[in-house]
C-alpha cells in the first residue's frame, strides 16, 4: 500500500512538472566564456557567479538587480579572487559568509583544489580560511554548497573511496569546525561524475548534476529530497531543464516560481551560460523571510551585527548570521511551524531579541523589521523572557536569552544592571507590582545561579505603571508584559 501511494505521488509529481509550460531563457549578463553557479542572495537582489570571461581565469563576479535590470558584472572586492582558478561560491542567506573553491590560493591548501571560507567585512570579502583537513584532501574538492543557516556543507570531490569519478560529500558545522566529510551515498552518487550540489532554502530540496547514463546528454540536473542524512532516489529534471548540453547548478529562488541554472545548450552566448526557468518545476518549499536593518537606536546609523537565530523549542542556536557592516541589512530565512528568537549582537551594544512563531500554514511570507541596538552606556533592552501565566516561573524558552545576559555580563565585567519587571493592566496595581518584582527576581536568581555576582544586579517591579502601549488590546498587553535590562553603571 505504501509503495502504491509512493508511486502515485511520484507520478503526480512528474506529471505536474511535465504539464507545466516552463520557459527557459538566458540571462543578460552571460558572456561568450563560461558563466555558471548563479548563487542568489538577499532575496534575489544579488547573484554571485563564476566566470572565466577574462583571460580564461575563473573568478567570482557579482551582479545586482536595479529595478528590473541586472547591473554589469564586477569582480567581487577583497582577497577571495587571489588564486589561479577561483569560484563556485556558496553564501549564507545573509550574504555575509561564503565558501568557495580555489586552486593555488594565496592562503595555501592541501590538494589540487581546496575549499575556503570568507567573511564580508565592511563591504570586502576577507578573513580567508582553508576549511581544513576534515573537508579538504590532496585531491580535488570543489563546488561547495552551504545551507542558508550555514550549518550544512556539501561539495564535490574526486578523492579515493567514492563510487567513481567525482562524488558529492557532506559535512556539518560543529563548535570545533567542520565535521569529517562523508559520502552522501548511493541514492546520489554513482560510478559516473556527480557534482554541483545545491540545497534549497527549505533545507529539503536537493539538486545536483550527473553525467550518468540515460540522461539527455552530458551532465543533467537531478532532483532529490534530503531529510537528515538521508536522500531520496534522484530523478532526472527532464526537459526543458536538461538538454543535450551540460547542465549544472540548479538554484530555486525562495518563495518565487523562478529557478536559475547553468547550461551549455545552443542558443546562448557561448560555452556555459546562466539560464532562468519560469515557472520553476522543482521549487523549494515556501519559507518565512525576515529582513531589515540593524541600527544604532540613538544615531540611527546602520550597524554590522551578529544575528543569532535560536530554535526556542530546543533552545539550540540554528544559525549564526551577520548584518552588513556598511548597510546594516540582514536577511534571515526561517522554516515554518517553528518558534525562533532572532538576536542582534554587537560589541559595545546591548543585544536585542525578538520572537517569531512561524505557523505551519504561513507559506512564503516576507516581513521587514528593523532592529535598534542600544549602546551599553546608559542602555536599555527588552529581554525575550517568558513566564508561566500569572506566575514568576521562567519558561524553558527563556533560557537562550538568559544565557545571552550571562555572556554579556561576563564579557563586560564592570557593568551593573537593573532588571525591571512590567505587567499589563489586568489585575490590581499591588498584585502586579508584586508579580513584576518577583519576575525580575526570578531572572536575577537564574543569573546568579550561573555565576553572575549578585551585587551587579538590581531588581524592581513596576507593575502596570510604565506601559509601552496604552491600548487595551491583547497585542498591546503582550508588549507591556516584559522584563527590561537597564545599564546602571
Amino acid at each position: 500500500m505504501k509503495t502504491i501511494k509512493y508511486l502515485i505521488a511520484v507520478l503526480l509529481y512528474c506529471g505536474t512538472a511535465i504539464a507545466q509550460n516552463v520557459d527557459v531563457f538566458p540571462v543578460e549578463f552571460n558572456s561568450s566564456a563560461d558563466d555558471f553557479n548563479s548563487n542568489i542572495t538577499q532575496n534575489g537582489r544579488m547573484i554571485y557567479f563564476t566566470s572565466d570571461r577574462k583571460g580564461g581565469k575563473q573568478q567570482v563576479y557579482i551582479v545586482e538587480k536595479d529595478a528590473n535590470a541586472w547591473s554589469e558584472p564586477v569582480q567581487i572586492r577583497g582577497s577571495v579572487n587571489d588564486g589561479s582558478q577561483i569560484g563556485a561560491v556558496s553564501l549564507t542567506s545573509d550574504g555575509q559568509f561564503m565558501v568557495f573553491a580555489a586552486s593555488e590560493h594565496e592562503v595555501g591548501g592541501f590538494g589540487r583544489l581546496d575549499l575556503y571560507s570568507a567573511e564580508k567585512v565592511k563591504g570586502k570579502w576577507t578573513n580567508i580560511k582553508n576549511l581544513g583537513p576534515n573537508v579538504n584532501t590532496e585531491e580535488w574538492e570543489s563546488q561547495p554548497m552551504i545551507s542558508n543557516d550555514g550549518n550544512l556543507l556539501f561539495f564535490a570531490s574526486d578523492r579515493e573511496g567514492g563510487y567513481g569519478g567525482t562524488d558529492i560529500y557532506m559535512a556539518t558545522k560543529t563548535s570545533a569546525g567542520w565535521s569529517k566529510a562523508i559520502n552522501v551515498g548511493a541514492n546520489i552518487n554513482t560510478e559516473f561524475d556527480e557534482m554541483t550540489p545545491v540545497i534549497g532554502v527549505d533545507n529539503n530540496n536537493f539538486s545536483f548534476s550527473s553525467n550518468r547514463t540515460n540522461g539527455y546528454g552530458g551532465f543533467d540536473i537531478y532532483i532529490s529530497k534530503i531529510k537528515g542524512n538521508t536522500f531520496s532516489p534522484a530523478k532526472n529534471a527532464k526537459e526543458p531543464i536538461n538538454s543535450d548540453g551540460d547542465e549544472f547548478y540548479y538554484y530555486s529562488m525562495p518563495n518565487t516560481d523562478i529557478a536559475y541554472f547553468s547550461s551549455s545548450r545552443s542558443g546562448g552566448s557561448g560555452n556555459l551560460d546562466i539560464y532562468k526557468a519560469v515557472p520553476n518545476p522543482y521549487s523549494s518549499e515556501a519559507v518565512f523571510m525576515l529582513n531589515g536593518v540593524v541600527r544604532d537606536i540613538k544615531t540611527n546609523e546602520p550597524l554590522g551585527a551578529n544575528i543569532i537565530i535560536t530554535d526556542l523549542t530546543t533552545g539550540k542556536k540554528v544559525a549564526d548570521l551577520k548584518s552588513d557592516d556598511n548597510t546594516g541589512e540582514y536577511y534571515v530565512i526561517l522554516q515554518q511551524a517553528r518558534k525562533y528568537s532572532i538576536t542582534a549582537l554587537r560589541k559595545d551594544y546591548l543585544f536585542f531579541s525578538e520572537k517569531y512563531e512561524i505557523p505551519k500554514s504561513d507559506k512564503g511570507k516576507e516581513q521587514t523589521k528593523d532592529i535598534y541596538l542600544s549602546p551599553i552606556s546608559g542602555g536599555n533592552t527588552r529581554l525575550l523572557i517568558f513566564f508561566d501565566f500569572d506566575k514568576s516561573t521562567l519558561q524553558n524558552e527563556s533560557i537562550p536569552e538568559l544565557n545571552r545576559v550571562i555572556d554579556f555580563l561576563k564579557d563586560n565585567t564592570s557593568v551593573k544592571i537593573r532588571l525591571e519587571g512590567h505587567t499589563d493592566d489586568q489585575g490590581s496595581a499591588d498584585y502586579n507590582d508584586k508579580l513584576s518584582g518577583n519576575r525580575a527576581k526570578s531572572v536575577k536568581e537564574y543569573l546568579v545561579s550561573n555565576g553572575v555576582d549578585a551585587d551587579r544586579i538590581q531588581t524592581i517591579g513596576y507593575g502596570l505603571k510604565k506601559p509601552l502601549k496604552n491600548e487595551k488590546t491583547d497585542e498591546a498587553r503582550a508588549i507591556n508584559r516584559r522584563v527590561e535590562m537597564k545599564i546602571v553603571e
Partner: protein
Amino acid sequence: MKTFKYLVLSLAFLVAINAAFSQEDVLRPHGKPKKNIIDEAQESTPFPFIIGLEGGLNYNMFSQTLTWGSPVPKSIYNAYANGSGLSPFFSIIADFNLNKQIGLQLKLSYDNKKFKNDYTGIADAYTELGERADATVKREFENTGSYLGLSAQLRYNLTDQLFIIAGPLVQIPIGNFDQTETESILSPGFYYNQPGKPTIISVNSTLSNVKTRIGFELGIGYKVNITKTIFLVPQARFQIMPTKLTDDELGGIDNSRILFGTPTLTATDKTLNSFQFAVALWFQL
C-alpha cells in the same frame, strides 16, 4: 638537421601550450578539455579580427563554343573547344566575426590561370613527293595569365571548425595572357611545306581583349587549431565566372583542310571557371 630542429621546436611549443592550459578548475577536475580552452580563447573576444595568408592550386576549366561555317570533319581546331590545367594562387585575407556564426572575409589574391588542350585530327600536309594530302596532326595550345582577385565573402560557421564561405569576386587581368600553339604531324613521311621541313611548328602570341571578370566564389573550410590564436585552414572553393574570358572571336577561318574549303570559324562564350584547393594560416588578433 633542419628537420630535427623543427621537430624539437614544435614539441617545445606544444609542451608550453599544454602546460599553460591543463590547469585544475572549479568546475572540472584536471581542467577544461584543451579544445574548449582554445574555442573559448577565440570566443572570449566578441568580434575577433583575423588576418591570414593562403596559397594553393587552381584546377582551371576552360570552354568555348566553336561554330564552323561549313563542316570540317576532324578539324584540328577542335583543340580549342575546351582546356584545363593547374596553376598557383596566393592570397591575403582579413576576416571579421559579425557574430558567433557569421563573419565577413575580405581577400586580395594573385591568381595565376593556366589551361591547355590538344586534339589529334586530320589536316593538310605534304608528302615527300610534294603532294598535298590528309595527315594525322595533333594541335595543342596552352594559355597562361594572371589576375588580381578581390573578393568580399560571408563566412558561415556550420560547426566550431567547419564553415562555408560565399561571395562575389572580381578578377582584374595583370599583364598579358600568353598563348602557345603547337602542331605536330604524326603521320610518317608528311611535312608542312616540303620534304626536309619540320614536322612540328610552334607559335607564341598573346590573347587580345582579356576582360576584367566578375563572378562568384563558394567554398568550404575547416579550422584546425595550432595554438589559441593560430589556425591552419584547408579549404576547397569553386570560382564560377559568368564574365567571358575574352570577347567572342567571329569570322576566323579554318584553313586546315582545303578540300573542305575555308569555312568561317566562330569562337563564342569563352568561360574559365576554377576549383581552388587552398591551405591558409589564420592569425587571430
